[in-house]
């Protein structure tokens, strides 16, 4: 029954996602709801299966409960396979002791045994916090054509944004000759997307060597890639020109959600040839009431809407009562907005209840001091009492 796999995916899903604050108090970042009916991890998992990669290791560490249950046996992504499929890989104990994953490279190092079971030629390393649709198989073909040891997917970003990313400096053949992490004066505009393909034999050797170096931080960007470059391995950049967004912060999470309803942004969830799969919540169709007014929004199963919704993403099982108003906001699964409440430029966490006539967040034009404006966040499973006011940019962790 043993089938060799050409390429195995390793998905880094163990980070805390501390910059999502209240939204990742009890949930790992890849399990944060996104785009009305998805969770962030649906994007890399769907990309894998759509690219023909059917063996995925998901490295978990921080608050894995929701994420583990969500992934389950991988069936929603067609990743329940007799050989291969999706496997959740938490840190584990060995005869010589037990260690948490101490870095991205260490997480893969601790699972060399998992990868070796499939005896792959290549390994693709992915992150659990990016929204994009990408054919990894094209990147793999490029890796093979270039006869590379490591291929890093890059996005050409506007010059003024380049200082927010890890920047790759390449020669005319797109060989990577140098790189800089968040440079003040970037020498290039090619930003790393956190997607790497390695020739497994090479990567394995560098992982083992890095582990022996007690000073090393056990990180891909800080150790493995620089080590490979110094040793003269062939590193190439793979240019990607589709939509890609890191959703590691409140602002970027909000923006990426809004991108889905912006007709000028090229990410299409309705393309039947590249579906994004997700675990189904088993709920009735959305019920739109007599008083409802919905425009420029996405709404999914189990919602009951009788208020106004504009420029918003409404996840499964959300209730918006009569007279409630939702503008430019994200309501996560099971959220309830009571009569007369107003939610503007805000994210309401899972199963949280916004009391009658409350005001959550505000439009930017209503605030004089632009620096004090931002997206307001109500965490998961909270109750906001009637008549409450949550200021823009505020982050709510407890019932108010």
């Amino acid at each position, binding site marked *: 029954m043993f089938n060799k796999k050409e390429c195995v995916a390793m998905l880094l899903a163990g980070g805390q996602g501390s910059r999502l604050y209240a939204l990742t108090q009890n949930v790992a970042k890849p399990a944060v709801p996104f*785009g*009305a*009916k998805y969770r962030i991890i649906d994007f890399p998992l769907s990309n894998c299966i759509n690219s023909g990669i059917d063996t995925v290791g998901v490295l978990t560490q921080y608050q894995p409960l929701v994420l583990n249950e969500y992934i389950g046996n991988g*069936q*929603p992504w067609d990743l329940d396979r007799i050989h291969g499929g999706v496997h959740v890989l938490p840190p584990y104990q060995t005869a010589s002791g037990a260690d948490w994953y101490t870095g991205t490279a260490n997480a893969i190092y601790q699972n060399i045994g998992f990868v070796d079971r499939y005896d792959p030629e290549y390994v693709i390393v992915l992150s659990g916090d990016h929204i994009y649709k990408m054919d990894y198989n094209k990147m793999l073909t490029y890796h093979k054509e270039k006869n590379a040891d490591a291929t890093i997917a890059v996005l050409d970003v506007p010059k003024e944004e380049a200082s927010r990313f890890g920047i790759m400096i390449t020669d005319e053949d797109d060989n990577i000759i140098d790189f800089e992490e968040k440079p003040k004066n970037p020498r290039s505009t090619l930003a790393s997307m956190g997607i790497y393909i390695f020739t497994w034999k090479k990567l394995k050797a560098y992982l083992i060597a890095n582990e022996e170096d007690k000073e090393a931080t056990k990180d891909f960007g800080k150790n493995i890639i620089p080590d490979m470059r110094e040793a003269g391995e062939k590193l190439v950049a793979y240019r990607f020109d589709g939509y890609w967004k890191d959703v590691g912060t409140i602002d970027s999470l909000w923006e990426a959600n809004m991108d889905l*309803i912006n007709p000028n942004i090229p990410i299409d*969830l*309705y393309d039947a040839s590249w*579906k*994004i*799969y*997700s675990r*189904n919540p*088993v*709920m*009735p*169709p*959305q*019920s*739109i*009431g*007599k*008083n*409802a*007014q*919905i*425009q*420029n*929004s*996405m*709404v*999914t*199963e189990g919602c*009951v809407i009788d208020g106004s*919704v504009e420029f918003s*993403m*409404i996840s499964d099982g959300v209730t918006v009562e009569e007279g409630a108003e939702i503008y430019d906001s994200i309501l996560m699964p099971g959220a309830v907005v009571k009569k007369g409440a107003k939610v503007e430029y805000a994210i309401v966490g899972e199963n949280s209840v916004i009391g009658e006539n409350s005001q959550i967040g505000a439009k930017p034009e209503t605030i004089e001091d632009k620096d004090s404006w931002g997206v307001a966040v109500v965490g998961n499973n909270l109750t906001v009492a009637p008549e409450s006011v949550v200021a823009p940019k505020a982050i709510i962790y407890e019932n108010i």
Partner: protein
Amino acid sequence: MDVNMGNVLGLVFANMHDTTLGDMTKNRTMGSVMFGGRYRLIDFPLSNMVNSGISEVGVITKSNYQSLLDHLGSAREWDLARKKGGLFILPPFGNVESTLYRGRIEALYGAMSFIKNSRAKYVVLSDCDVVTNIDYKPIVAQHIESGADITAVAHTGVYSSEDIKTSTVFNVDENGTVTSVLINPDLSGTCTTSLNMFVMSKDFLIDTIRDAMSRGNVSFERNVLQEKCRELKIKVFEYGNYFSKLNSPSSYFKANMELLEPANAQKLFVPKRSIYTKVSDNAPAKYDLDCTVKNSLIADGCIIEGEVENSVLFRGVKVGKGAKVKNCILMQGTSVGDNAELNYLITDKNVTICDNHILTSSPQYPMYVGKGASV
């Protein structure tokens, strides 16, 4: 009374009443008729059985069952992909004696070896013509306690002759025992009508089928319920919860429209007693900049640019700019062109309504557009 529902076998008749919904069942079974925005009729009996704790279910079908097989697949979505029990699809068994069955008795006879092999003690039988969220546990409990041979789920209410002429009607004494049975009578007013769900012991069912077959009888209603009404102990379980019985195209239209009333939808879609269906991985519904949507049920995958009111839209329906959709049921994949106007229309799967078309009908006889048609 605590009932062990692990001891109960479910049998669903997918083809019964195929003729009552007209063209909608031309190429599919009653069980695979679409309903309520994202369901097929068989989802209701299957989910009800699963939610009642029944984990072994046979689906009896006779013809046009391709769409049914496609819908059910491995039955994982109903949690019926099991090592012990699970879902069994029982098409006609190919030999000379039992070809296409003519009545419920012959259908059951074709499934005889399946029924005999089951380790269940009791059997719950259901058709696909009643849409409801029912718990079979108290019905099985009543059946055991009363010592009845057959327990029939029924509803007492005021009915029109239109409804009664396709129903089985029970005359019941003060103890809930059936004293006589009328089939498709010409009546109206207060009646106790059958919801086509029955409970009996497995042994009784097997004996009844054998006996009826040996006499050349094919109808469970006529040859068992009606003829043996006096010699058997037939009890009624009076069902008081929300339900819709689909016995004509207009009742189908009405039952869908009733779900626009939140009070009705809440009685059918009960939390923790979910109605399961096949997953189709659609994106969320998208409401565009200039759309207006009121009093409607909308499924995922819809893209709405026009106006929708008092309507049920199934998965992946597209409503173009300036289009007006009122009092319509638009099934999966229907595409409504720009500036088209629809009123009282039922479209089957993948129907295309071209730009600027106007189609209007009446609530009594909503117009039906067949599968894949282009208007």
